[in-house]
């Protein structure tokens, strides 16, 4: 519906003005920065990925073609990092969306306190990744003194021994993903809430008169109406999931045994711990290609081109 109206608008709008120099005056400052610090590095990264790139003074970089890419596919740590990155995305994206939807539905339904709750849920979103990552290291302390262990042992009695969260790969991934969900729920919830408030009450009332229950109304009215919003949030969250870096870097550093490594932590490590700039650049491009393909597929298949 929206896209249709947008397209119609664009066609009926008066033709845009053609001027000779004025546009460039407006374009130039931003475009210059964008070109030098965004587009040029983008090309440069690709060029570097084709070299055994040397950065230290007095050394020569060797052209190696696609060897860095081939190396990645033979590198078991790369596959581990890819698997972890995918796992993080597969868990945190649905986790955030489902919880955010529940929060948004609840907030939409309650008569008062919306702003207060929205503020509280949004707090983690505005807090720096560095701070919350360190905070979670503290909460997920391996001993009984860690808040999470203490809660699980002595309040809800689910475990009898403290879990060494950040020492073991599995629990460490759980801690990292918990942080990802906790920090992100508020963002999706605020967007969902705004979208929910845009659905007219009459639709729901009409459906209720027809005898539809809450579940049916959710799937027949809310979800279709929210579809563009849902796809938008999904696409952005998946991109965000593949870009996970700071929590892993600060919570486990990819350890133990690279088992919590993600693509970007591995890339950073290769580049700045071993000065393998060419390999790091190749890893970046592989990640970018993955993200591009997944986003493309999502948009192409999940979005219905035209609705009423």
């Amino acid at each position: 519906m929206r896209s249709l109206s947008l397209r119609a608008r664009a066609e009926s709008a008066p033709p845009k003005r053609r001027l000779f120099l004025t546009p460039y005056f407006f374009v130039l400052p931003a475009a210059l920065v964008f070109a030098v610090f965004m587009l040029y590095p983008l090309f440069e990264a690709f060029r570097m990925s084709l070299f055994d790139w040397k950065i230290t003074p007095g050394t020569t970089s060797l052209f190696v073609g696609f060897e860095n890419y081939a190396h990645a596919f033979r590198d078991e740590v790369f596959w581990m990092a890819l698997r972890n990155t995918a796992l993080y995305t597969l868990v945190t994206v649905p986790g955030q969306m489902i919880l955010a939807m529940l929060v948004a539905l609840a907030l939409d339904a309650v008569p008062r306190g919306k702003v207060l709750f929205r503020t509280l849920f949004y707090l983690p979103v505005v807090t720096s990744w560095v701070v919350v990552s360190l905070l979670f290291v503290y909460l997920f302390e391996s001993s009984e003194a860690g808040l999470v262990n203490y809660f699980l042992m002595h309040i809800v009695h689910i475990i009898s021994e403290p879990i060494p969260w950040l020492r073991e790969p599995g629990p460490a991934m759980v801690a990292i993903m918990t942080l990802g969900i906790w920090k992100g729920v508020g963002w999706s919830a605020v967007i969902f809430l705004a979208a929910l408030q845009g659905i007219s009450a009459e639709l729901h009332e009409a459906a209720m008169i027809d005898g539809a229950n809450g579940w049916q109304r959710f799937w027949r009215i809310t979800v279709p109406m929210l579809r563009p919003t849902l796809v938008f949030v999904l696409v952005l969250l998946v991109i965000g999931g593949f870009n996970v870096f700071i929590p892993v870097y600060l919570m486990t550093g990819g350890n133990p045994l690279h088992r919590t490594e993600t693509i970007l932590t591995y890339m950073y490590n290769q580049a700045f711990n071993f000065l393998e700039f060419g390999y790091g650049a190749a890893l970046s491009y592989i990640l970018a290609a993955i993200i591009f393909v997944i986003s493309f597929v999502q948009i192409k298949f999940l979005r219905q081109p035209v609705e009423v």
Partner: protein
Amino acid sequence: MLRPQKFLSHTLLYAALIFGALVMVIPFLYMLSTAFKGQIYILEVPPSFLPKEITLQNFVDAWQSNNFARYFGNSLMVALATTAVSLVVSAMLSYALARFDFFGKNILFYAILLTLMLPNLMLIIPEFVLVKNLGLRNNLFGLVLVYLAFSIPLNTFLLRGFFEGLPRELEEAVLIDGGSYWTIFWRIVMPLSTPALATVAIFTFLFAWDEFTWALTAIDDPLWRTLPIAIATFHGEHATQWGLVFAASLTAIAPVIFVFVSLQRYFVKGLTQGAVRG
């Protein structure tokens, strides 16, 4: 439909919301209480939210002996400069994209959309080499330039959507009166776009205030550290002194939370109205 039923469902909803809100807030409260605890009360069993003895020592240490006032200033300068410049240049670019036809427009716009999808971090390696060759490492100006580049695509995208929806009649009137596009931009477009600009400004500020990885890579001199690297380094130096680490962390998040809480109505409104008539 029945009153008691509605009352019951509301009670349940509130209970669920309160539970969720607690999950969101408890980590912050724990951080807050830890920051006021002395080192011997850190990681005690059972954990407590109320310090047995409240001490301000952690804040004193962070601010006095560890230079956090300076890091705060660095972060503020970088974030304000990035926000101000990004806002103006993104708005100019957006206006051009929304109003004019010019050679290269489509390519530019698609390039912007493309970079929106790509992780900024993938550029960190070439960015490092570029900034090094320009002699801008270890320098707040180098941070600002890169943050500008990282923020321009999204800001341009959002503002362009908003500008396209602005009525043209006023602009036509200015043109007829002999005004220039520059006048239109500053006198009409910018004032009319305050809500959208505010949203964009807040997002940009938050991004620059919190950015970690590039600052970590670009800044070597402790004098030019921003808060996120200062805090992460601080954690590395004082791994077990959590009170100190969290006192430093609160320094970084307090202003952000203050800005968010005081401006949030404005900014949520801005976000939704940003696309009015788009």
